[in-house]
């Protein structure tokens, strides 16, 4: 559990953007992981499985926070991922480099930001992301590539010297 608490909390914080909410979600995620260990298939990737549970917990919490939209329908996951903060910035960025990355991440679309999170930050395989997001593998490949390029362009807009030093 010590090995994964940082990643589970990091993922939860990305979605919730509130430290206390993220702690609650991470705790709930660990409880679900603990209770569902028996359902983990032999040979499957534990990290991807645990992060998928964490994402589901975060989405559930976001639905709860959304407190019933006017239409009476539940919002899509993409809308939920977009909604909690207007800036998308974390509460406690450490260092100028991380601040720059988080400002650039906040400028991305929700779908691209989540793709960066799962692929480049959490290091999940494309097929694992496809399964997690219920997307075709080809869509994940294209979206991951575009998201990375968009992030690089946003970073260069904020800091033209990035990558040269």
């Amino acid at each position: 559990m010590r090995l994964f608490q940082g990643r589970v909390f990091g993922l939860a914080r990305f979605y919730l953007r509130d430290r206390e909410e993220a702690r609650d979600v991470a705790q709930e995620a660990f409880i679900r992981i603990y209770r569902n260990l028996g359902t983990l298939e032999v040979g499957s990737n534990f990290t991807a499985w645990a992060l998928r549970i964490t994402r589901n917990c975060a989405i559930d919490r976001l639905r709860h926070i959304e407190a019933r939209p006017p239409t009476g329908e539940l919002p899509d996951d993409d809308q939920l991922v977009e909604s909690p903060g207007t800036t998308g910035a974390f509460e406690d960025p450490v260092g100028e480099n991380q601040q720059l990355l988080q400002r650039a991440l906040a400028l991305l679309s929700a779908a691209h930001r989540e793709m960066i999170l799962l692929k480049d930050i959490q290091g999940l395989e494309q097929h694992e992301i496809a399964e997690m997001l219920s997307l075709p593998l080809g869509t994940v490949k294209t979206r991951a590539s575009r998201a990375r390029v968009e992030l690089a362009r946003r970073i260069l807009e904020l800091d033209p010297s990035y990558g040269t030093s």
Partner: protein
Amino acid sequence: MDCARFEELLFAGLDAELEPVERERMAMHEHGCARCRQLATVVAGNAEPPPRDVADEIAAVVFEQTSGATVLARLRRDLLPLAEADPGPEFLGAVLAATSDRDRRRASPRVYLPRLDLSGLWQRLAQRPRLALEGSFVVTMMALMIFGLPSASTAESPVRAFDSWWRGRTDAARQLIENASESAQRGFDSLWNESGAGDVEPDNPD
């Protein structure tokens, strides 16, 4: 050859000469892949404006392979540390406490009182044809043993046989008790007469 290999060789070919075999494979792939054909045209610098959705992807590929290459390489390095965050020293204890509480609740003794639902049991049993057949066979056999065959009127049924046997045993026992009682009475009378107690005149009340 796939698109990724084509891209790799396309941009490698800008800086160095490719093997003839590789060029031939690239030409074959380019012939059959519209996307890579457009990419090669853009890289060659004489592109017609391609469709917008393809243009974005091709522009991304060109960016990845040229000016954006160093940025993307640094991004890969800088993004990884964002994967983890420290939830605080008390987080582990809180999770362990929460899971152990749930374990305790789950392991708490529960008293399961069996409900006696005979009608339900019977219905369930009756729905199993083989069991119902066997049960009815057993019940029939028991009825025959107890009451006898209806047509065998002369034959004594087991119940009647038991009844007569029981009556015989009780009559014999009753006879034995009566005999013992009579012999005891006789013995007592003889002792009474021998002692002379029987000769004493009763007191005259006058």
